[in-house]
């Protein structure tokens, strides 16, 4: 187990280095926004001014030096947006509570509800409950967050006045306010995943019912409920947990741009949207690297969890 964890950590570090290189290459070399110094200097700058800025920001240095300098700035929190001259890390830090609150709440909801719905659909396969859940999950998968969010805001927040219209209240300020402001975003984001996850779990459970070890479990004289929970479901959860880790990390890295924007949560996702709007490459770079870190770290945690759930993986 220890060897597995150590090996996983080394892979993690290597992955992060590769991710940072790709991100840098993408935003600095490939993004067609021209000379960053010219962009910074403004429309009326003279070539001399542009050159000055180029030297000041290090754009004249060889590309690998630029890469190392940029990474140094990003990882020491010294990166400043070229456009707004805010410290990027401070910006991300400001958005993190909202994004984390969204991710953790929604992540739990979509995981638990998917397990419930997927199991019910599998147990009642072909029957009424299964059909209803199939239709619901199709709607869930195909419902864009900006549409569903708009519906919730209009009917539940604006018309019925049950929840506030967007915004974010920190947990430390008011627990009730925090919860009230997040219920709708949680539901909106979860619905997207519940549809997909419950479908995957349903078919995974139905496949496992034909497995020899499930037949053995039945032959041992276990009740149907024991067979289902201890053997079918237990084995079917393994792919679901792996999937969940990836999607959860995505949301932490500001991946829920649409949901954050619709509800005006001022999270990392919204920061990403604003940065795209003004081609703020350094902020985008840092958000992408943050997403990379989230995916890699949570991926590693989930791998350890999956290795615990499936003993065969430890040897692999």
């Amino acid at each position, binding site marked *: 187990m220890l060897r597995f964890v150590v090996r996983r950590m080394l892979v993690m570090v290597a992955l992060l280095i590769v991710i940072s290189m790709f991100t840098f290459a993408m935003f600095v070399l490939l993004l067609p926004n021209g000379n960053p110094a010219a962009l910074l200097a403004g429309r009326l700058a003279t070539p001399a001014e542009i050159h000055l800025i180029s030297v000041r920001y290090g754009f004249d240095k060889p590309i690998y030096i630029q890469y190392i300098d940029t990474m140094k700035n990003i990882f020491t929190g010294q990166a400043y947006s070229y456009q707004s001259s805010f410290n990027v890390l401070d910006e991300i830090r400001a958005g993190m509570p909202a994004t984390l609150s969204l991710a953790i709440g929604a992540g739990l909801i979509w995981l638990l509800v998917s397990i419930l719905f997927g199991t019910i659909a599998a147990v009642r396969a072909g029957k009424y409950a299964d059909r209803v859940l199939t239709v619901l999950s199709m709607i869930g998968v195909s419902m864009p967050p900006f549409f569903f969010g708009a519906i919730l805001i209009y009917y539940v927040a604006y018309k019925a006045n049950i929840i506030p219209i967007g915004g974010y209240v920190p947990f430390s300020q008011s627990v009730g306010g925090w919860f009230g402001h997040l219920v709708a975003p949680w539901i909106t984001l979860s619905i997207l995943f519940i549809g997909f996850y419950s479908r995957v779990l349903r078919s995974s459970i139905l496949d496992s019912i034909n497995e020899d*070890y499930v*037949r053995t479990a039945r*032959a*041992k*004289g276990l*009740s149907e409920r024991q067979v289902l929970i201890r053997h079918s479901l*237990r*084995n079917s959860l393994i792919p679901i947990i792996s999937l969940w880790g990836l999607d959860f990390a995505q949301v932490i890295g500001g991946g829920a741009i649409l949901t954050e924007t619709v509800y005006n949560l001022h999270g990392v996702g919204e920061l990403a949207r604003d940065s795209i709007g003004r081609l703020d490459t350094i902020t985008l770079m840092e958000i992408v690297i943050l997403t990379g870190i989230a995916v890699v770290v949570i991926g590693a945690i989930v791998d350890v969890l999956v290795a615990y759930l499936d003993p065969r993986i430890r*040897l692999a």
Partner: protein
Amino acid sequence: MSATEPPLLEISDLRVAFATEDGTVQAVDGVSFTVSRGEVVAIVGESGSGKSVTAMTLMGLPRGSNATFQGTATFDGTELVGASDEQLRRIRGAGIAMVFQDPMSSLDPVYRIGDQIVEQIRAHERKISKAQALDRAVTLMERVGIPRAAERLRSYPHEFSGGMRQRVMIAMALSCSPKLLIADEPTTALDVTIQAQILEELRKLRDETDAGVILVTHDLGVVADIADRVIVMYAGRVVEQGVLDDIFYDPQHPYTWGLLGSITRIDSDRSQRLPAIPGMPPSLLSPPKGCHFRPRCPHAFEKCVEVPPLEGHVANRPESLDRCWLTEDRKRALRQVDGQVGLRSTEPVIS
């Protein structure tokens, strides 16, 4: 086994049908036989002959609304066909235990061996503590020849070889002292040396516990090794049954001749091609009229379009039953092929 004691298992006119999109598949078509305590009964037949479905039906394992069951199967005073789920659950694993064909996939990969054995014990004996159940698991594993059982208890299935896993399956099957053990091709997935060891375990078990054993197999070598009585199935029906030696030395049904004739023999002429029964087993969606073996039988005649009853035809051998219209003398003459029992080939044998 006294004459007055009722048999452990008595199956009478068992019929299992599956409704499919193409029609009804009569997988088991009027099967009757008995198993006594301490007796090993082998059910042989090729794939699709209904032998596995028969075995699974006893455990109540064919599931799904498309299966229909008729007839009776009485185990130790309890009727199995039409029993409630809870009744069957109590019998499964405790009264009747089963060992499956593929030990590689029959154990749940995510649980320790010991926990899987304990799970079965505690499913039937609610009062036993986990420690007691683990102790029993160690004893069982030692009994089926797993070395360092106390240590191996904590292993996962993937850390065991196929033969060891099948031993675990047998230990698990024994955990609640079943009266009947159903072994569905228990050695098919194992190599030959391991096969012999597993058969030895089954034999030991039968001797020690006096349990009845149903051995489902298509391997006549295994049958000759361990069975007391043999039931030959073809296309959902029993075509012949009898004591082991009678089946091997005085077989009555042409299908049995074909099976025996297609075994490689160490003393046979190697220049000849290994005989096979010509043709294919019939589709159970639309089986042939009368005797199911008729289309493949070189000895078929007019009467074979009527279903032959499973009856005794041999004098002084009431336990030998077969479904064939041929007279005993004709059978004895027809089954001789090159001085051995076999099914006469309709095409010339070329080397």
